[in-house]
């Protein structure tokens, strides 16, 4: 696994975190995010190659007291801690994107938790699909409300597959 880039949000916050010029030498991508947003909603979005169309997702969501599952036709990416959560708490997320440089539609797996020193904290599992066969060369992450707070970070890694070593029958 090779680190491509780490972005840390500075003073004043940021509307988005972007990775551009993603090297096409890997097989899969892994994004690890620690984030908090200034808005009133904990949902955040992901775009590939500046595109926000052709996305669909299913979510399994727990709040500490309820569980739900939802279907989306937007670029649902992950969940963050947000403005009403305990100060200084940040949500965590890992997004896995296999075969990002290939010529098939792009599927992604997202696991998020938000942190809050209260009864309400959230966990979200997302299954996403970008119905586009283009190789992913850039990724943008952005909250649906407000901006990323200072100290939010995201790191992008490439993972490179081996060759051979498997038999089929």
């Amino acid at each position, binding site marked *: *696994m090779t680190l491509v880039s780490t972005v840390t949000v500075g003073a004043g916050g940021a509307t988005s975190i972007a990775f551009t010029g993603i090297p096409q030498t890997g*097989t*899969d991508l892994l994004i690890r995010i620690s984030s908090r947003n200034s808005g009133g909603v904990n949902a955040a979005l992901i775009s590939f190659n500046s595109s926000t169309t052709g996305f*669909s*997702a*299913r*979510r*399994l*969501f727990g709040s500490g007291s309820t*569980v*739900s*599952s*939802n*279907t989306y036709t937007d670029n649902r990416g992950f969940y963050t801690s947000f403005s009403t959560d305990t100060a200084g708490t940040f949500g965590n997320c890992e997004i*896995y*994107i*296999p*075969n990002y440089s290939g010529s*098939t*539609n*792009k*599927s*992604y*797996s997202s*696991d998020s938790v938000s942190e809050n020193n209260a009864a309400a904290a959230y966990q979200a*599992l*997302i*299954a*996403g*699909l970008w*119905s586009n066969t283009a190789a992913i060369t850039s990724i943008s992450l952005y909250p649906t409300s407000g901006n990323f707070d200072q100290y939010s970070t995201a790191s992008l890694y490439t*993972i*490179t*597959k*081996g*060759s*051979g*070593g*498997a*038999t*089929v*029958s």
Partner: protein
Amino acid sequence: MPTTTYTPLANITLTGSSSTVTFSSITAGYRDLIIAISLNPNGNGNYPSMRFNGSSSTSYSSVSMYGTGSVTGSASYTQNRIYMPLEVGTTSGNITTIITQIMDFSASDKHKSVLTRSNPSTNGVEAVASRWANTSAITSISLFDANGTNFASGTSFALYGIAA
């Protein structure tokens, strides 16, 4: 020097349909294994499953939690295979991502724990915790479709080692 992780061990992308993919002679030089699967639906519905060391005894148990996009649920299984994902969609090109982690795979003093995340985005999302009730070190892994159909061309399987 940081410990290397996600060391590539094996990989295959199917160029035709296949009923079984096997990783064999798995080196014991790692702590955990990760298998990343990009599943191209075969049009009939897939039930990817996994066995270790060729064992088909009823020694695998799994607990899953899932969401279909409208319904949530949980289920448990005791059967002759590791249960992996919810039934995936049937549309070719709607790729499903499945990530499986096998902890302490080469240990000879414990049952083997497996965590699986499945993402058939047109069907739902699922997380599964499984156990193989066997203390043998895992030296081979077989992946097959319990639906009795084949994996479709374009499906890929990648095996990685995670160092201690």
